[in-house]
Each structure stands twice: as structure tokens, then as C-alpha cells.
């Protein structure tokens, strides 16, 4: 058992440098890193040869009774979503670096395999992490479709807790309601509904809804519409746009023709870039106020959106410019390791590490049932502001920021400024009662 420590600490002995350390280039290679990435090809050298080839490095295979914790990233590392995957890893590993590479005083081994943001691969990677790597905790995924597809496997194996560091689809709670599933991120109700009464009070009493036409976009749109009508507003139209569209001209026409004073939008990633830029290109900024879920105007899209984003409102649980000590410290630490400001995904990764740390510390072990009991209702001191895991759904009860895009004198000419913080809006439980 003890000999396993050696190779985990001396990472050059077992592994070649991993992606996230080489890319930013900030991490000093000579510094004993705690993060190792076990590559599949090292294991493939044959069933019999594996143990010999890797020596004591296979500590994690049957779980972690040797004390080493195994963290399995179920994240995309290629294609468009790789930015999100890497940010989550960066956040998680920032915590590790701040704690001598340890979680609750134990050594940590991280394992990653690219989900490609593909549901099918997601299931396979989940299985790999749970069965092959003996992960004590799953971190991820990015895509809600992957999260939904993972539920069955996580439930069947019942061998690790699952810290969902992004995927916000409410159905993971409604239909999964898994004991082991804890969201360190958000759910799609939070990034839409609480904005509705605010828009009604401060912007307009009528809106048109624009959304990427897939489950997540539809959920967000529905939650907003429901809350907006409840607040007394009127939804005058809705425009669904196929996911991954390049040209929004026909839809912008419909949005304009609706005659609404404001628009609530759900788009993310490159869709958000196209939508927001073209919204501005077509001169719609002069005609209506743009509001949306925070992914519409986030750190990963603002550089490309540039001035087109100015003045637009959105709601999210984290804003890097937020003025509180906890956040300022976090931003500083993050920027000393990476060139860029932390984004919401990095915070979700960081908080996953915090939550895992607290739980392992609390139960002094890795039994998933014990960890789940410990995490339930736990309060986490996050850069976003403190949040609590809902005792019944394990979703985060957290503050939500209403932000507006303003000019900035930083490298990116625009940034989000918090206009108002909604204190812990009460979450629906969708019949889940853990």
C-alpha cells in the first residue's frame, strides 16, 4: 500500500505530462504535481503485462483502500466543448495545487478520457471510470444529454459519488433523483426562471422567447415563460432555432416582427456568438432589450461577441467581476496559473473539489453512501458566494446574479457587471425527495 504513494507523487516515473499542464504552460514541471493522467494505451499492453508495466501505479484499480483518491473526469477534451472541459479541470486542479495536491489529506490521482461531448462515448467513459479506474468521484459532464445517459450506469455501479460540474437539465433530478448525484453547478430553472420577475419589474412587460431548439433550450424557455406569466407579463411569441445554426437572419426577422419590447434568449457557445453578433448586426439592439440565461454572454463567448454584447442582461450563478473577498482571492489565484480570468466552469470545477474535500474529510473514507450522506445539505464556501446542496434534490441552493455587459479596459473590451443579486431563489424539487 505504501509503495503506491511513491509513483503517484513522482509523476515523471509513471506518466508523461498531461494536456492541461502543457497547454497553459504555467505549471512548473519540476514541481511534484499531484495530478496524473492514466492513459489508456499504457493499460493496453496486455492484461498480463499491465501490472508489471505500471508497477505500483495501479493502486486505484480496486477502489482506494490504500488511501489514494481517484478522481474520474467525464468531460470533453476535443472539439468545441473542450474549453468547458478544460476549464472544469483547471478549477478542480487549482484547488489541488492550493492543498499540496491532496484532498482531505490524501493523495489524489486524476484520470481523464475524452467524452467528445457525445452521449454514447459519455456512457463508455463513465463505465471506464467506475469499473476500470475505480474512481471515487466522477466530475462532469458538460452536456446534459451525457448526464442523462450516464444516470443508469452510475446507479447500476453505485460505486462513487457524482459531482455534476455543469450539466443543468432538471430531468437529472426529476427522472434520476440519484442519491449519488450532486450538482456543483446549477439547474436550468435557476438560469432562467428567476430572471423573469426581474425583467417584468425592470425591463418590459412583454417578451419574445428565442432559444436553441433542443431539450436544454426548451426547458429554459418554458421555465422563463411560466415565471414571466406568473409575474403578470405577456409572452408574445417564441422562436426556436435549430442547434448549431450559423445564420440567424430568418429568426431575427421573426423576433423583430413579434413587436416585443424585450427578448429572453437561450443560446450557448458558438450559437451564442452567432446570435448575439447578428442580433446587433441586424440593428435589433435599437428595437428591443436583450436578456437571457448567462451562457448567452459568458467568459467563453464575450471575446468573440465584443461590442455586440454591450448592454445586454443575463442571469448566472457566477460572475468573475463579483466584488467579494472570496471571489477576488479565487480570481487572483486562478490568473496566476492561467492567463485568463476564471469562467463559471472553472468555479464549478473548483467547487467540485471543495465539496469532495469536505465530504471525504467528514466521513474519513470513500464509501459512496457515506459521502452522499455527508454532502446532503452541506454548505460550500464558493467564490460564487456560499451555496448549499438541497437536502432533497442535491441541487445547489445559491444566489443568482443579474448582470449587464459593460465596457472594460481589460484585454477583452467587454465584461459582465453585477446589477443585482437575487438571494437564494427557492428551488423546485420536481418530486424528488431523497
Amino acid at each position, binding site marked *: 500500500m505504501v509503495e503506491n504513494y511513491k509513483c503517484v507523487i513522482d509523476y515523471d516515473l509513471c506518466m508523461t505530462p498531461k494536456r492541461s499542464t502543457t497547454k497553459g504552460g504555467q505549471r512548473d514541471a519540476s514541481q511534484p504535481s499531484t495530478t496524473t493522467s492514466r492513459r*489508456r*494505451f499504457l493499460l493496453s499492453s496486455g492484461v498480463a503485462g499491465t501490472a508489471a508495466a505500471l508497477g505500483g501505479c495501479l493502486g486505484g484499480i480496486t477502489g482506494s483502500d490504500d488511501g489514494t483518491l481517484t478522481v474520474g473526469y467525464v468531460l470533453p477534451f476535443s472539439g468545441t466543448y473542450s474549453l468547458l472541459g478544460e476549464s472544469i479541470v483547471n478549477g478542480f486542479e487549482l484547488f489541488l495545487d492550493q492543498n499540496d495536491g491532496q484532498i482531505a489529506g490524501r493523495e489524489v490521482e486524476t484520470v481523464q*478520457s475524452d467524452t467528445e461531448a457525445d452521449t454514447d462515448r459519455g456512457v463508455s467513459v463513465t463505465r471506464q471510470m467506475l469499473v476500470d479506474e475505480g474512481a471515487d468521484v466522477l466530475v462532469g459532464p458538460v452536456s446534459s444529454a451525457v448526464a442523462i*445517459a450516464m444516470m443508469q450506469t452510475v446507479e447500476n455501479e453505485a460505486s462513487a459519488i457524482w459531482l455534476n460540474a455543469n450539466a443543468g437539465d432538471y430531468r437529472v433530478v426529476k427522472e434520476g433523483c440519484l442519491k449519488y448525484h450532486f450538482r456543483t453547478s446549477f439547474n436550468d430553472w435557476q438560469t432562467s426562471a428567476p430572471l423573469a420577475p426581474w425583467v417584468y419589474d425592470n425591463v418590459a412587460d412583454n417578451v419574445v422567447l428565442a432559444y436553441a431548439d433542443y431539450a436544454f433550450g426548451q426547458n429554459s424557455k418554458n421555465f422563463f415563460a411560466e415565471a414571466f406569466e406568473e409575474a403578470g407579463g405577456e409572452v408574445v411569441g417564441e422562436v426556436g432555432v435549430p*442547434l448549431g445554426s450559423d445564420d440567424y437572419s430568418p429568426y431575427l426577422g421573426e423576433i423583430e416582427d413579434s413587436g416585443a419590447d424585450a427578448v429572453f434568449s437561450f443560446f450557448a457557445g458558438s450559437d451564442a456568438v452567432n446570435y448575439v453578433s447578428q442580433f446587433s448586426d441586424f440593428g435589433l439592439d435599437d428595437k428591443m432589450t436583450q436578456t437571457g440565461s448567462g451562457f448567452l454572454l459568458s467568459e467563453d463567448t464575450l471575446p468573440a461577441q465584443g461590442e455586440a454584447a454591450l448592454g445586454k442582461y443575463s442571469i448566472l450563478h457566477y460572475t468573475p467581476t463579483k466584488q467579494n473577498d472570496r471571489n477576488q482571492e479565487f480570481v487572483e489565484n486562478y490568473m496566476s496559473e492561467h492567463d485568463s480570468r476564471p469562467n463559471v466552469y472553472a468555479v464549478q470545477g473548483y467547487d467540485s473539489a471543495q465539496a469532495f474535500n469536505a465530504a471525504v474529510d467528514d466521513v474519513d473514507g470513500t464509501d459512496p453512501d457515506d459521502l452522499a450522506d455527508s454532502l446532503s445539505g452541506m454548505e460550500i464556501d464558493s467564490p460564487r458566494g456560499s451555496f448549499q446542496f438541497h437536502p432533497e434534490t442535491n441541487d445547489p441552493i445559491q444566489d443568482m446574479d443579474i448582470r449587464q455587459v459593460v465596457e472594460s479596459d481589460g484585454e477583452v473590451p467587454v465584461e459582465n457587471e453585477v446589477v443585482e443579486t437575487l438571494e437564494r431563489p427557492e428551488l423546485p424539487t420536481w418530486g424528488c425527495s431523497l
Partner: protein
Amino acid sequence: MREIVAMFDPRRTSVGDSQILTSRGRLAVFGLIVLLGVLGPVVAIVEPYWLYILVQVLVFALLALSLDFVFGYAGLLSFGHAAMFGAGGYSAALLITEVTPNALVVLPVAMLTGVAVAAVIGWFSVRSRGIYFAMLTLAFAQMFYVAAFADLPATLLGVESITGGDNGIYGIALYELIGIDLSDRINYYFLTLLLVALSLAFLVRLANSPFGRVLQGIRENEERVAFIGYDVRRYKVVGFAISGGFAGLAGGLYVPFQSLAHPQFLHWTVSGELVVMLLLGGMGTLWGPMLGAASVIILEEMLGGIAAWEVILGGIFVVVVIFAPRGLAGVLISLKEDPRNALTNAKNAIENYVRKVRGKS
């Protein structure tokens, strides 16, 4: 336009000849299946996760086999096999969640779904040839994809959900098979191995049947086959439908295993990957594409944790296609026939490459 038809002629590169699989070849394949059968329990104890990989390898080998039958033996390059794979998968998902998880009911239905979908696509497509045929099959498969993604069936029938839209159908239970616990992964592995072995045996038999000979004739000289009295179109449609049945079976095996039926299964990238498996393995040999499928799955698995794995995987494709013209099957055959000259052959291949790049072919 030059020889659009001839350019898709697999004969130019196929390794085999009149008899599909020599008796020694059969022995080797049989041996491999027995080996896999013995290997299963060993793997289950030593490295249980690899059992999952093996199941995945077997499923995609079956899919590649189904494509090779219709392309390698009938000259029909399908770029839409994802349609049959996905259709089989979705029908299995719906049956398991709504009706019964009995494998003896669901798997045959998945297969029949594949046959039906392939028959429809084939009926419309076989009049076109070569790349036009490929693009027609692609078009139909993409239409299936869009329909599943937008849950068109539900819209048309006015119900809430059938295909589950972009989330697909999830949480699908594993099969039940009288008295056998298929949630035990070794049993699922054996079931898959058995079905793949039976499929291979059947397709080899079919390739050597009077029907199979006509298909081969069509591949070699479609016009002449018509002028000696065969209904070429009907043979093609039937051949395509049979192939679709096995693609549907592969879908039916895969979906409960992944607990998921997803529109991605119908996407052209699946068909594209399948063609890559075929070319990588060596088409027209039936076993080559299965090898290609195994290589792609295992490569992806191995490279999944590596930075820039796409660059490596893409690079492997490029190197194989330039230096191993007949795919992995070709490499194995030449190694077997001429093991001593392997080094010389490799050297020749490189010299040949340099010469061609310099334009002195």
C-alpha cells in the same frame, strides 16, 4: 465524367477470390471465436472493464460485417448504414421500455426493423450507382437522423414523445433471456459473441450461395448480369435488406448495453466511421472489416485520455492508407505469405512513396 461507376468498384482492391474464406481461413476464424470465448471469463476476472470494450468491439465488428457484405460482395457502398443500426436500436429501446425485455422477442424485431428500413432505402437507391448511391443512402439516413432528433414521429402522431428528441431514450434495461442473467456482463458478452459468430457463419454461407454468387457477379459486371437474365435491382434490394438486418441486430445489441438510444446513432458520422473501419481493415474479406472495427474502437479507447488524440488517430488513417494499400487485412496476408521480406517491403513502400511524391510515377 470518367467511370463514376468503375471507381467504386471494390474488385480493384478486394483481396479474396471466388471462394469466400478458404478452409484454412475458416479454421482461423473458428479458432479466434473459441479463443474469444475462453478469453471472456479470464478478462472478466483480470480486467473486467475490458469486457465492455470487447462487447463494443463485437457489436461494431458485426456492423462492419454487415456493410462489407453489401459493399465488398455486391459493390453497394452504403453511406447510410447508421440508419439501420439506429432503427434497430430505437425499435429495441421502444420494445424494452414499452413491451418486453425478452431478447427472443426484441432482437428479431430489431433485425426485422433493419431489414424493413434497408428495403425502403434500397428500393429508392439501387438505381443510382457508385457515389450517387452512397449519397442517396446518406440522404435517407440523415432524414432518419433529423426525424429522430426533432421527434417527428411524435409530432405526426400527436403524442408527447417517441424518439425522445435530442436526449434520445435513456435508462433502457438489459435483456431478459429465459434463466440467464444478462446484467452479468460476462453473459452479455457471450450472447454478443454467439450472435456475431452466427451472423458471420450465416453471411459466409450466404456469400457462397447461388444468391451470393449473383451479388458478386453484379459487383463485377452489373450490366452483364442483367443480360444473362437476373433482375439486378431486385438482387441489390434483397442484398441490401439482408445487410440492413444485421446492422439492425447490431443496434439491438448495442442499445440496451449502453442503456441508451440516441439520435447520434443515426448520424452520418457513424456511417462514416464504419466506412473508415472497412477501408482500414481491408474490404471484401468479411474478416478484415471486423478487424478494422476492433482497431478503431480500441484505438479510440486508448487515445481517449491523450491530448490531441484526433491528430494521432487521423495520422494513423493517413499512414495506413498510404503505406498499407489493402488495409490491415492486406498487411496480414502479405506478412503471412512472405514474412521474411517484411522489412524489404516496408522499405519499398517508403521508396515508392517518395518517388510518387516527386512525381516520377
